[in-house]
């Protein structure tokens, strides 16, 4: 078991979502955008200044800041 957050993924690495932390509207928004437990997420690339990060999830590309990515716990695959 290697549990980390989305923020720890390097380019090309992927993981399966375990949980989205927090109980506020930001977490709800992350889940509305498809970051739900069981989904596979891949880190696609980062912006020129290292933040934000581009992820591939449920068939589309999502941009998250590293602060936001830290809320999403994953298991590496």
């Amino acid at each position, binding site marked *: 078991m290697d549990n980390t957050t989305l923020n720890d993924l390097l380019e090309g690495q992927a993981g399966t979502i375990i949980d989205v932390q927090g109980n506020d509207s930001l977490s709800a928004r992350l889940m509305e*955008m498809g970051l739900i437990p069981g989904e596979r997420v891949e880190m*696609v690339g980062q912006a*020129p200044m290292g*933040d934000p990060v581009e992820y591939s999830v449920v068939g589309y590309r999502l*941009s998250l800041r590293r602060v936001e990515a830290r809320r999403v716990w994953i298991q590496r695959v």
Partner: protein
Amino acid sequence: MATVALIGNPNTGKSSLFNALCGGQARVGNYPGVTVEHKTGRMRLGSTSHKSIELVDLPGTYSLSARSADEAVSVEVLSGEMPGLARPDAVIVILDATNLERNLYLLSQVLELGLPTLVALNMWDRLESEGIAIDPKSLSHSLGVPVVCTSASKRMGVADLQSALGELLESAESSQSAREQHQPASLASTSFPEPFRRCVDELALWFDSQGCRLPRFQIERLLIDDSQAHSYRVIPKVLTSEVTERISQAREQLASEGVAIPLFETRARYAWIKQRVAGVIERKPRERRASLSDQIDRWLTHRWFGLLFFVVLMFLIFQSITWFASWPMDGIEFATQWIGQRIESMMAPGPLRSLLVDGIIAGVGSVLVFLPQIAILFFFIAILEDSGYMSRAAFMMDKFMSILGMSGKSFLPLMSSFACAIPGIMATRTIENRRDRMVTILIAPLMSCSARWPVYVLMVSAFVPNRSVMGGWIGAQGAVLFAMMALGALVSIPVAWLLQRFVFPGEPSTFIMELSSYKWPSLRVVLMRVWERVLAFLARAGSLILVTSVLIWAAAYFPGDHGPLDIATAKLEAEQAIPDADPEKQQALETQINQLKSEMISQSYLGTAGDWIEPIVRPLGWDGKIGVAVLASFPAREVIVATLGTIYSLGAGQDENSQGLAAQLRSATWPDGRPVYTLATACSIMVFFALCAQCVSTLVTIRRETNSWRWPIFSFVYMTALAYAGAWIVFNLMSFW
């Protein structure tokens, strides 16, 4: 006539589908009290049917939780609470078939509104290449609503969609009494936790007892969304405090029973989605090969190349706006002058002619001149948006903007504001964080817009020596122009910081954004968007700008006996009509007219205001005439050039490049003989114009976008204070120098 709403996630091809259904017969409506526009269009159901349908295009949204203004509008339209718009008879939900699960989230919410619903499964043509197979029949069965496969950009499936809509409306009509018939097979909300549903029941009973009947969906939203959300708008004001009380009680109780608000909703809906798509969708396991879009993306968001490309692209866009716009701008200028001359030749001098020529044609014309720039700017913005690059630009600039406390979504509105703050402010609608959006709106007018150019060009050409500095590399005039361009952007940094610190505390910004795949922009969608903007701009020029032009004209014309001036003008025109007239006589008449004009102006209300204003503007190195010109340029900055021209007895309509006005400015003196204009005065005027909010259209746009007069007044006060302070500092520094 039936009303049908069209809703879907952003980037699902909704605009293409709307255009395909309505055949370009769209109009943008602005509903009072609402900050967000939505489009309506007319469509017919097939060639045989005579039934016409009003199609309402709702803003692209991921969810109906009323967090942003866009989402709130959608809920209000769909529940029939939008003033001036009947509750839709049916709703078309457009889903991106390549991204079905996430798109079904919105559908799960729409279904609960109880409207006859039709699903357009769009991007059908791209499924195969994505390795996805969907069985539309099973999907329709599983969802309990009709499903039509479409490829809106290729106009495939549009006729099927129209006939399915016809059937849906017919069956809805025939079973008007039995609404349950339109209840789909299953709703996600039936699997909400039992304590939550009990709470909703209790609240519904209470609302009924208060004589305020709310749909169940909206009561759920009140319980789930936080109190900042727009769902509170539907509650009558008298009930607000009690509702807030009851909701917070209900939430406490739910928390003690283990219901996690707001997350349980998302979980329940995705569980529902999993059940609905089981056995309907099949994804072929395929090796992850980088798609063309990915390859482009690697380059365009590359550490160095991405930034370089971005800078070059922005430079080219702003350059080409100046290049392409100059021809049509000259044309419009020529046309307004020609119309003015035609009127002058047909009418005898008098107040009516002056109103038409100096007031309406000069006023509205000076603003219409910017139409080509605005159209071209929107053309590029629409291409950037439709091609998918816009979201990458925001992606790349986010880090930089976050240092200033904002997000990448603010970058492009601010960039557009260098052409004109009005489209820039309108472009902030895509920013869902209220604080980010407000700060962006309030600093956008500081960006050096194109209307400041005429002022800078006049002052620089008259007072900055045309010589090289820094060893001949930089021209002094060019350097001053550039400094003026950069000034507003530099000042906006501390202003943004102060606004975030003291005016809009809290609510940290986020950057959760979909990066749509790259595609060739659709010319139809792009031109459509430009057309909408052009119409909106023309409407404004025809109303607000017309009225202010007339008011300013009246203030500069009355009171005063214009008889001698009119006689002199008539004499001059008669003289000019003679083929071999005496040039000296003409010269004398012109001097007399200029003299009279300047007398009339100083007698007018505007001139009296100048005497009043002189003590206030004296510390800036200005005389009363400059003060009046600045006052008169309240409707639009560039008006100062025309007003200075009028005041310096050359008559209005002087071009800013004309040596005449520049020479007149140089020879103007104080009563004691010192020149009024020095380099310090010129710089003080330029700095004032760089920082002031002298633009009624911008202020009205802020009013419309923030839905309150408070913010345009705030903008005007803070920017005028900044402008005054900046001009004072520059004048005093340079005078000591």
